[in-house]
């Protein structure tokens, strides 16, 4: 008898085995499928927890925190599951037991199985470094792939944000921008390229993002957001990323997001300073603020400068747009603490971040409980207050 056969027999005697039907019938237990992803994608016991044997010791405590629970360890034919069971016992899972005959017997016995949604080999290779994070995992990556983010503006803020959202595997990006690429944009709008000067930014963005990650669907909308199209474009989004350059569009985006119940990831920049926040009143009406809770009105024209005097350090929107992308990804995954009711203020010259807190305005015309105004166009000056007067 070969050494490996002897060892298997010894393990079987020491650890015991359970018939598939007994494992399936134990409502208190859990089936742990330790096969590799390419095997699992062909089918796996319904409701099983899936951790490949190669990662078992590293991940099992995250997915099975209760070591007293019966764990029915399953592989393809009942061999690898014996070794896995031995490891689990060593980790303190005293009620771990191998399922005799593995998934082949499970199916032959007519027990229930499902074809789980799993990442294909290409996605596993591409996103491996973030899938390995417990906060993301395979389920989180699949969630990103099913998500739709609308980026309003493919400029300084939208450029880095779109690149990182596409790289992270967000399934659909809608890019709304009616502007054309100008050479003066290229100092900060890193989605575009010198050879694309004069072409629509939304189309240039699609080209760059498709080259970065062909699996992302990019819907390039060469149009300006207005009362007539804002709700149809934003509807169904899991998050909106506001990277616009004017107050009128910011209020329009806010108001439409409030009406649709979509979180609005806000970013704005001026010279060396930036602001980031998440406006998501649908999270808790009357508690989570909207843009109008923070800024009920835009500045009047006499207190706003001409835009040409504003200027911006090229890398600043890179910092702010990346923070927006971070918040958007957190929202999509449902992890961490979003910047709700908090304004993150960044001063690039001093290299300093400040966290400023603000509450929902109980008298907010748009997000206070019971408020439901029609969309209106806010006529506003373009840039900010003060500098050009």
């Amino acid at each position, binding site marked *: 008898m070969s050494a490996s056969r002897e060892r298997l027999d010894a393990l079987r005697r020491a650890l015991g085995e359970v018939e598939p039907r007994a494992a399936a019938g134990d409502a208190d237990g859990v089936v742990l499928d330790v096969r590799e992803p390419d095997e699992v994608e062909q089918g796996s016991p319904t409701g099983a927890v899936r951790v490949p044997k190669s990662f078992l010791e590293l991940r099992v405590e995250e997915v099975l925190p209760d070591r007293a629970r019966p764990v029915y360890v399953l592989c393809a034919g009942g061999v690898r599951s014996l070794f896995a069971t031995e490891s689990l016992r060593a980790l303190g899972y005293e009620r771990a037991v191998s399922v005799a005959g593995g998934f082949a017997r499970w199916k032959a016995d007519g027990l229930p199985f499902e074809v789980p949604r799993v990442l294909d080999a290409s996605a596993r290779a591409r996103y491996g470094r973030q899938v390995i994070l417990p906060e993301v995992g395979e389920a989180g990556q699949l969630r990103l792939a099913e998500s739709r983010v609308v980026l309003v*503006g493919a*400029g*300084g*803020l939208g450029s880095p944000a779109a690149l990182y959202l596409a790289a992270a595997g967000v399934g659909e990006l809608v890019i709304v921008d009616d*502007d*054309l690429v*100008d050479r*003066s*944009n290229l100092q*900060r709008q890193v989605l575009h390229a010198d050879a694309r000067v004069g072409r629509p930014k939304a189309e240039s963005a699609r080209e760059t993002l498709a080259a970065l990650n062909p699996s992302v669907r990019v819907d390039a909308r060469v149009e300006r957001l207005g009362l007539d199209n804002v709700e149809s474009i934003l509807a169904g989004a899991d998050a909106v990323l506001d*990277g*616009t*350059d*004017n*107050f009128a569009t*910011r209020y329009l985006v806010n108001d439409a997001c409030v009406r649709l119940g979509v979180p609005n990831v806000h970013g*704005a*920049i*001026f*010279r*060396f*300073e930036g*602001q980031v926040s998440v406006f998501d009143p649908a999270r808790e009406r009357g508690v989570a603020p909207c843009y109008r809770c*923070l*800024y*009920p*009105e*835009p*500045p009047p024209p006499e*207190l706003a*400068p*001409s*835009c*040409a005097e*504003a*200027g*911006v350090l090229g890398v600043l*929107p890179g910092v702010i747009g990346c923070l927006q992308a971070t918040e958007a990804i957190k929202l999509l995954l449902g992890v961490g603490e979003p910047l709700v009711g908090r*304004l993150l*203020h960044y001063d690039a010259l001093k290299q300093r971040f*400040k*966290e*400023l*807190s*603000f*509450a929902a*305005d109980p008298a907010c015309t748009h997000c206070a409980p019971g408020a439901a105004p029609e969309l209106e166009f806010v006529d*506003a*000056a*373009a*840039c*900010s*207050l*003060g*500098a050009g007067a």
Partner: protein
Amino acid sequence: MTSATLHLPTPLRAFCDGHDTITLEGATVGELLRALEREHPLMAGRILDDAGQVRRFVNVFVDGENARAKGGVDAGVADGAELTIVPAVAGGAPRADERRA
């Protein structure tokens, strides 16, 4: 006498001789902002409106908390507090077509 340090945003620095921080005396947000106007008359009307209230596109944060929900100009300020003034900012640089216009 209570004093506090005001952190001024970039767009307003041109009206206070380029200062980014100014330490002034005052026990409320309103007292401090009026002291700012007295010291730098070009600031008049830029943060406070004609009625003496903080303009609705400006926020004053006292030690990181928005003063608007704490009485606005009447919000009390502890000695040594930090006031951060943050105006609404529209966004990036001008669109090419607007700049040419």
